[in-house]
């Protein structure tokens, strides 16, 4: 793919209302999930019932958009049928693709639904051409969502060696770990982001105002104390403030969000097919604002116009943005 060619905008939806907002704001494709452990945004009040998913897919198709269903957790032992049935439902509803991470589920889906397009979730953490080619040759995976640990140059190198599309995150929350392999939240809560579908599950989060400061606890452990007037982060351990030896601060990662709008031309030149916006846990107001902004950016890119960047900072965690690993620099 060369500069100026159209890139696909893949947008998040946590509810049917957010899906409609995304489609109306210009999403080419929307990704979403069922309201159970099969998806990695298994939060209270969020996601789609079977009936809502069928209606959402029909709505998106009427408006020329695709729906990609994330079944991107790893099936628990003895509960595989729940994940397998979810794949069946996606095929029945006419989903444009399912986004999978688990090897067993990929095998099951490719064997029983050969016509169903498979995307490899970021949760699979396939970060080199050999790993990706294994998924492509073995299961017929058509698109890989690349982990947020690669530079633009590394993405270009991968694209030269694989026969599949790549999709990269362009905006939203960042994970410090190779996705799908992080167990930090499990240590504090006993619930696995990768199997139960929720990093820092709300049932284990507590906020308290103490003398003007906001104190966040996860599983009873205090992980931040944010002074009045300072931006609050999500209650995730990776963004926590801890003491380690003489150091006190963000041991793992600062609370900042990805905004790689300025890198759209370079990502296109690196051979990327689709750009993904993070945030299925966010409201329809976020979805609408971010999707509209990035659709405008993609159209500007396609037309050879300069891309406006940084206009979404107020929506981001930490109220700060970064280009993440795409542009690695020494600290």
């Amino acid at each position, binding site marked *: 793919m060369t500069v100026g060619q159209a890139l696909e905008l893949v947008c998040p939806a946590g509810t049917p209302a957010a899906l409609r907002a995304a489609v109306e704001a210009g999403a080419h494709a929307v990704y979403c999930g069922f309201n159970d452990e099969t998806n990695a945004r298994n939060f209270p009040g969020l996601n789609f019932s079977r009936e809502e998913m069928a209606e959402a897919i029909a709505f998106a198709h009427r408006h020329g958009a695709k729906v990609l269903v994330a079944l991107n957790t790893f099936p628990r032992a003895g509960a595989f049928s729940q994940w397998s049935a979810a794949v069946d439902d996606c095929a029945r509803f006419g989903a444009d693709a399912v986004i999978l991470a688990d090897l067993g589920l990929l095998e099951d889906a490719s064997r029983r639904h050969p016509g169903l397009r498979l995307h490899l979730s970021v949760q699979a953490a396939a970060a080199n051409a050999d790993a990706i080619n294994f998924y492509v040759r073995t299961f017929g995976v058509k698109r890989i969502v690349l982990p947020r640990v690669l530079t633009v140059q590394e993405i270009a190198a991968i694209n030269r060696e694989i026969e599949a599309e790549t999709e990269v995150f362009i905006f939203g929350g960042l994970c410090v770990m190779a996705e799908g392999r992080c167990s930090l939240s499990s240590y504090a809560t006993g619930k696995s982001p990768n199997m139960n579908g929720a990093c820092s599950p709300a*049932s284990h989060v507590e*906020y308290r105002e103490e003398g003007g400061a906001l104190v966040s606890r996860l599983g009873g452990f205090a992980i931040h104390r944010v002074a009045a007037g*300072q931006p609050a982060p999500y209650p995730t351990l990776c963004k926590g403030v801890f003491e380690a030896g003489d150091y006190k601060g963000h041991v793992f990662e600062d609370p900042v969000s990805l905004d790689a709008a300025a890198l759209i031309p370079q990502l296109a030149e690196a051979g990327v097919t689709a750009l993904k916006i993070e945030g299925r846990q966010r409201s*329809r107001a976020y979805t609408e604002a971010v999707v509209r902004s990035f659709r405008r950016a993609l159209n500007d890119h396609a037309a050879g116009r300069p891309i406006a960047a940084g206009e979404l900072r*107020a929506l981001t965690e930490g109220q700060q943005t970064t280009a993440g690993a795409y542009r690695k620099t020494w600290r």
Partner: protein
Amino acid sequence: MPSANAIPFFPTAGALALRLAPLAPLSFAAARLARSLGRRHPALFKRLGDQTGKTFLLDPTDLPFAFLLSPRPEAPGLKAVRRSSAGSWDARIAGSLAALIGLVHGAYDGDALFFSRDLVIEGDTEAVLALRNAIDNEEIDLARETAALFGPFESVALRPAHGLAALAARWTGVAFKRPERGTWE
């Protein structure tokens, strides 16, 4: 989406005057609104799931009173209370009146308001998330819901309700109506 920095506060003089106002009429109207909302948006309860048994303190910090919401499917309740006599609650959602109304109307993003400290939540986080997501999905329009209180005269009341909401939004900067988005291109 309007900037969180531009969220207006209820005028101090008005808030002072409201300190003396009786809450019974407000509670009566709020209770009717809650029952009507429950009838017109039954999917709210489905999305709330196990959280329908919880009690929420909705706390407009620029007003001298708050609201207790009990989203029971069989008898949803909403009543105005003084903070000193609010009693027990499972979760508190606090912010300016404009921020809370803007959340209902989808003018603001709840996480962004939390990041910027314009929204404070305490207590049962699971209940707060479920309520936030349930309301967000319903695309509630408070002017329309108010008009619905007029029963058979809803269609007559709707136009002036929307007109008033639009006027109030222009004057105050508060998102009294849902943002008009329009489709792409």
